[in-house]
């Protein structure tokens, strides 16, 4: 009995293995050079300014990122309106947002992904490129007039080039922004600054002086206690270093995943974590810690603890973004009392390398399954995507909904209909733009003209955006360095411990547990972990890319 069972198990295993291997062998791999023309007729005369409409009803499968605040509803006006205008019905695979990335990876890896895969950030498509599971969309953007139009109008081609892979093509359709959209910066207690006649600091040096003055007036308070060291992409002082680093001429915090930076003068990539500029930035913040101006715990406390200190008046400065500033203000209305305080975001301070910010105008977008190529209505698919995600009409529909039902235009400004609310802009509204209608959600409504973007912002935020655009220069993006998959494997194994080491020592140097006289020893440690080998791999890939594009 046992023997027979054993044989059975073995047999089943072998059969399954062999059949799957065979099946795998016979699946066709896309040969990129040939198929650059799309199947299907497409809509006649489709162009910018025209609504896409398919000749006959079509259905396309798509992933849908389900956020619990506006749970998926198949009866949303969004779906029926899309079908009404374009004759396309979307069939959704609903995935909870909490684990969207993992499910997306699973579906693609098991060959089961829908045709359209939205909510994909630039960079997230890379693992799937070498297997040919994702469409090299750059070959087909010629069928997408709205996309091309915006790229040209807003001069986005250099940023698009950043997305190119080793074969010179790019595989993700990013969301496009007209302007960079800065969000994170310092938030301060403007009332306390005003009370003590401290001017709003415009540079990091002024910031340090301001903190010093605060410490003199309030000796028992550590004025600056920061957050975002433990949440999100765990990186010590992740948000702070992200917006501070460009002003020091380097990269850091959330602004980088591997501390690779392009040196324009040298024309090649360097490892930012070992540079003099990076050291200077760390020295600056170490100075703040040494003088008791910045809370040591900023580097390890939870966001809740940091917020608690600010909200109860135990600190006066914290990093913030547009959502948090409003949330904190609301809390403080209850803890400190309305009218007894005031807080605001200030412009990112300028540094030794000037008033600069880094940022990309590319946003999350979508990937398209390579199988779409074989769909008889491939061209229609491309045009549909082009209309919904990149045309002004499509974007307005996705964000605001249907004119007359969910919003109307007053003096050229978009205003919600009286009974519709969206993120608190119209508290009297009983219905919610997202929950009841499906507009303004995370899968379709991203990117677009600055006008559209700011149409849902508060006045405070619009003022901040205006000031930042006026006073700050946006740095040019680094060129790409797409690697072959074999090199990529090695690179990842080198880069992970290097990144760990930089993060660890960033914290140690800032806290002062490691002295700056040890800096050279630190650089040697990085070398010992393979820093030079890693940078060489990066530059090798960059040289290959340059050759190919010339």
């Amino acid at each position, binding site marked *: 009995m046992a023997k027979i069972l054993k044989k059975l198990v073995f047999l089943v295993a072998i059969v399954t293995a062999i059949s799957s291997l065979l099946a795998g062998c016979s699946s066709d791999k896309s040969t990129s050079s040939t198929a650059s023309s799309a199947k299907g007729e497409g809509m006649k005369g489709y162009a910018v300014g025209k609504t896409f409409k398919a000749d006959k009803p079509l259905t396309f499968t798509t992933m849908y990122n389900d*956020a619990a605040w506006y749970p998926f509803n198949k009866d949303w006006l969004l779906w029926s309106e899309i079908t009404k205008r374009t004759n396309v019905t979307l069939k959704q695979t609903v995935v909870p947002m909490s684990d969207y990335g*993992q499910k997306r990876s699973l579906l693609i890896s*098991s060959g089961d992904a829908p045709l359209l895969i939205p909510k994909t950030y630039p960079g997230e498509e890379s693992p799937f490129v070498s297997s040919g599971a994702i469409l090299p969309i750059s070959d087909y953007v010629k069928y997408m007039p709205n996309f091309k139009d915006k790229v040209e109008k807003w001069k986005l081609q250099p940023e698009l080039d950043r997305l190119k892979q080793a074969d010179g093509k790019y595989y993700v359709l990013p969301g496009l922004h007209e302007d960079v959209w800065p*969000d994170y910066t310092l938030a301060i207690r403007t009332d306390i600054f005003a009370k003590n006649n401290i001017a709003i600091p415009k540079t990091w040096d002024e910031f340090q002086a301001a903190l010093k003055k605060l410490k003199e007036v309030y000796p028992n308070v550590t004025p600056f206690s920061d957050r975002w060291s433990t949440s999100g992409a765990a990186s010590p002082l992740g948000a702070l270093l992200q917006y501070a680093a460009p002003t020091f001429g380097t990269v850091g915090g959330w602004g980088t995943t591997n501390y690779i930076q392009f040196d324009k003068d040298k024309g090649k990539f360097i490892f930012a974590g070992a540079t003099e500029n990076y050291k200077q930035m760390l020295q600056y913040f170490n100075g703040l810690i040494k003088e008791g101006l910045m809370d040591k715990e900023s580097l390890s406390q939870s966001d809740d603890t940091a917020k608690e200190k600010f*909200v109860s008046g135990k600190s006066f400065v914290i990093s913030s973004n*547009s959502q948090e500033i409003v949330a904190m203000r609301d809390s403080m209305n209850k803890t400190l009392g309305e009218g007894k305080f005031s807080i605001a975001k200030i412009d990112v301070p300028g540094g030794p390398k000037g008033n600069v910010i880094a940022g990309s105008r590319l946003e999350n977008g979508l990937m398209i399954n390579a199988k779409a190529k074989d769909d008889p209505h491939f061209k229609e698919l491309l045009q549909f995507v082009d209309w919904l995600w990149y045309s002004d009409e499509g974007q307005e529909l996705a964000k605001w909904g249907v004119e007359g039902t969910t919003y109307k235009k007053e003096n050229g400004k978009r205003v919600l209909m009286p009974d519709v609310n969206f993120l*608190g802009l119209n508290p009297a509204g009983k219905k919610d733009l997202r929950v009841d209608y499906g507009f*303004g959600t*995370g899968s379709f409504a991203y990117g677009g003209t600055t006008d559209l973007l*700011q149409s849902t912002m508060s006045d405070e935020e619009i003022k901040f955006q205006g000031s930042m655009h006026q006073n700050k220069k946006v740095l040019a993006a680094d060129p790409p360095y797409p690697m072959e998959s074999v090199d990529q494997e090695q690179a990842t194994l080198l880069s992970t411990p290097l990144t760990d080491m930089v993060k660890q020592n960033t914290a140690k140097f800032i806290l002062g547990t490691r002295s700056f006289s040890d800096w050279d020893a630190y650089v040697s440690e990085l070398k010992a972990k393979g820093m030079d080998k890693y940078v060489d791999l990066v530059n090798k890939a960059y040289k290959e890319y340059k050759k190919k594009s010339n």
Partner: protein
Amino acid sequence: MKETKSYKVFKVVNVIILLLVVYITLFPFLNVVAQSFSGRAQIEAGQVTLIPKGFNVLTYKTILHDKTFWTSYRNTIVYTVVATFISIVMTTMFAYVLSKKRLIGRKFFTSLAIFTMFFNGGLIPNYILIKTLGMTNTIWAMVIPGAISIFNMLIMKSFFEGMPEELEEAASIDGSTTYGTLVRIILPLSKPILATMVLFYAVGNWNSWFGAFLYLDKSNMFPVTLYLRNLLAGATSGQSAGATAADDLTQIGANIKAVTMVLTVLPILMVYPFVQKYFVSGIMLGSVKQ
């Protein structure tokens, strides 16, 4: 019998130790419950300890008014009941068989089971298997893949092995079949372990969300744990859509974790006393002469 003095002292110390245990386990729990009823401002300022401050049921209201919440709660109950039933039947069968020394190939089958505790194929092969079997988006994907926990099975097996063999011998002499012995003699005597297994499986199924996430893509089939997990992720994500956040949203964000926990734990807390009944000692074992 008279108790020694040292035993009396021990009993007092014991009570103190156990009270300490209660303090460190109950206190944090009550703190979370209190937070679930508190206002955001008070929570963020760290003012909440054991009693709700700034009494606020907005988060509860928002969740309980959501139809999806109730649909997913119903789903969870169905999945848990069905899965636990299937698991108990399968595990008991397996444990009983493997506990019999007379089973030929006993070592082989036990090894077969233990081996699966260490080796698994990973997400992708499992997903493809379920898909090939046509089980995606059905209740079967929720109740079958985890039917037997080898860990639980081995524990049950060791319980069965601890039962005196004379019981079975007596039964078979009386002409009872294997099935009969199992159902009429062994199971009634195994109430404590059965109750424990029901508890383990039920709690495990109640809290599981991963299987649902893998094999379901219709949101009306999601269990409540997936729904709440998604809610938590949405409320705590740092994504700003370039717009102001409503007062409501941030209130919910502040105590969503606490509310989620209370809503998940409540049913189990209500069920547990019924299970505790079965941890009764001295069931008939004394009736068999060793």
